[in-house]
């Protein structure tokens, strides 16, 4: 730790602070009264410090308005999708990594080739399928299509491949069946990978925009991400800047908290998601 190191930290703090400014600004605006914001958004320190201070925007958000409802929708969709993806991906990943069966190579290739298919290439046919079934504006329409993503299988496959074989072979010799080995031996070992996958899926579900936009047309089924898009185009007239910003803060809270608590997993998850999704 020499002098140049401290200069470096100091020099990096400036861009880091600038990087944070937009977020601080959103939080700060959400704590200022709408009447003040209508006149000026830079009352104290360019608006970066919330003076005059008020929590009314949050109170109003929970008293009326749909934000709490959207928040709940997001929670249901994100948790449902997370459990779904974990269930289908851990099992499939384990089978492809460890078990022998006919056409294994072909099936593995088929399962992973979907990594090449972007969401944008299938959202129109998916829309027509769910329209034929009359399933739009429901939780299943928001959850089911994303359970089909191969990224989870890819992640679990790689993880299970790296586990030494002798653990399960010992169990095999004791005559334990395949399903039991999977459930009692492999799943407990897979916890870190499952955690990464769970966070990746939750973040994805929480932040997804395109599919909810086409599938959920009734406001009751909006996720918070979608709801926020619907109120930001005419924020000035309808609800006031402070309240829209408060919605933005509420929408970001779960992912930011998740990030701050499980930083290591989140970074890992987003790196995997970014490099393969």
């Amino acid at each position, binding site marked *: *730790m020499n002098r140049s*190191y401290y200069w470096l930290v100091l*020099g*990096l*703090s400036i*861009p880091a*602070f600038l990087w944070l400014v*937009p*977020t601080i600004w*959103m939080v700060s605006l959400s704590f200022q009264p709408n009447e003040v*914001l209508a006149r000026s*958004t830079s009352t104290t320190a*360019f*608006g970066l410090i919330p003076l005059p201070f008020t929590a009314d925007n949050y109170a109003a958000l929970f008293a009326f308005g749909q934000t709490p409802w959207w928040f709940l929708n997001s929670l249901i969709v994100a948790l449902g999708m997370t459990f779904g993806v974990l269930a*289908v991906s851990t*099992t*499939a990943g*384990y089978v492809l990594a460890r*078990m022998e*069966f006919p056409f294994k190579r072909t*099936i593995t290739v*088929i*399962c992973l080739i979907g990594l*090449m*298919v*972007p969401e*944008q*290439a*299938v959202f*129109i*046919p998916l*829309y*027509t*399928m769910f329209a*034929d079934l009359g399933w739009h504006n429901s939780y299943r329409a928001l959850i089911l*299509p994303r359970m*089909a*993503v*191969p990224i989870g299988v890819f992640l679990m496959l790689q993880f299970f491949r790296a586990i030494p074989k002798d653990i399960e072979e010992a169990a095999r010799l004791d005559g334990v*069946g*395949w399903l039991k080995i*999977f459930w009692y031996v492999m799943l407990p070992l897979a916890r870190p990978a499952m955690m990464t996958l769970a966070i990746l899926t939750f*973040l994805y579900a*929480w932040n997804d*925009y395109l599919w909810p936009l*086409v599938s959920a047309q009734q406001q009751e089924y909006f996720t918070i*991400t979608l709801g*926020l*898009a619907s109120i*930001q185009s005419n924020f000035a007239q309808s609800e006031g*800047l402070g309240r829209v910003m408060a919605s*933005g803060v509420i*929408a*970001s809270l779960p*992912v*930011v908290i*998740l*990030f701050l608590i499980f930083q290591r997993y989140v970074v890992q998850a*987003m*790196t995997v998601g970014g490099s393969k999704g």
Partner: protein
Amino acid sequence: MRDRSRSRMSQTQAAAILLAPFLITYTLFLIYPFFRGVWISLHDWNLLAVAFNPDATEFVGFRNYERVMWGRNIEWGLFAAPFWQITGLIGLALSVILRRVDRLSRFNAIALGLASLLLVFLPGFHPGEGGRWYDRRFWPTVGNTLVFVGLAVPGVTISALVLAAAMNRETRAMGALRTLFFLSQVLSVTVVTLIWQIMFSPRQGLIANITETFGGTPINWLTDQQFAMAAIVIATIWWSLGIAMILFLAGLQDISQDIYEAAALDNARGVRAFWYVTLPNLKRTITLVVILQIILHFQVFGQSHLMTQGGPNDTTQVLVRYIYQTGFRDSELGRASAMAVFLFVIMGTFSVIQFIVGREKS
């Protein structure tokens, strides 16, 4: 013997049971929709008409592709878009020359050669006398998307690389700084656009407020043709720097400290060490990050849809937004699907390149 065959049977059965849930959802919601999308793209398929009468589709073969990508009296000329085509020719010449003198590996020479060939070939198409594109907006939209990718990818890559190199130390302060830079990455696209729409607002925006304090005239970022694209690129860089930075940090950890010490003996420290040691050793990571970013940013939608609505004057209209509009505002699912297949081909090509590059060394 019998015992063994029975246990093999049960292994296959167990595999089938465990694999079934994924295979079923995967087939129903990814594989089938993909082929159905191709099928729709071969039809005249109006969203509203089909909603009233499921048989209101008409098979038209490849006509949707023609209507989207082709036109009347389209000609090809070597000097239709001189800048790009000459750049392509130079690239082509370079790939041959550098390969001859052995400065390029065979793989890179082929890649550069193919890319240059496309650059000579594709921009050469233009409507001849009395001709016109059937869809005047499609190719400009593809062009805008490429401009967006061309600005966002170098922007993210260079800033992430510099930051990662500066923060490549395991100390508490560096950890905290990394957290700050990564934080915006977890936000949703609608939060990002909410923040930046108001940041850029000429009346209420933070940027305008600061400019005015110092006596400048605020720029109308989102509605000015010159600045709209820059604005969504800035918001995108702010949003997506984190992943690139983390990937670079991971790559930097693989460079052994000995190399830096050896370089320090040759008086290569700081910027010189970055240039002569870090960059050459990080080549593969940089390539991967760039390809990954191209794939990621080619799918841009929310920023353009929410911040500028594709405007002003279509300057920020991007491919996914055009697909969305063609399908869900104009109800032309057939044409929209043809564009979606086009998008898939481009992104699929980059996925294959990513796969090859990722495999090359590992």
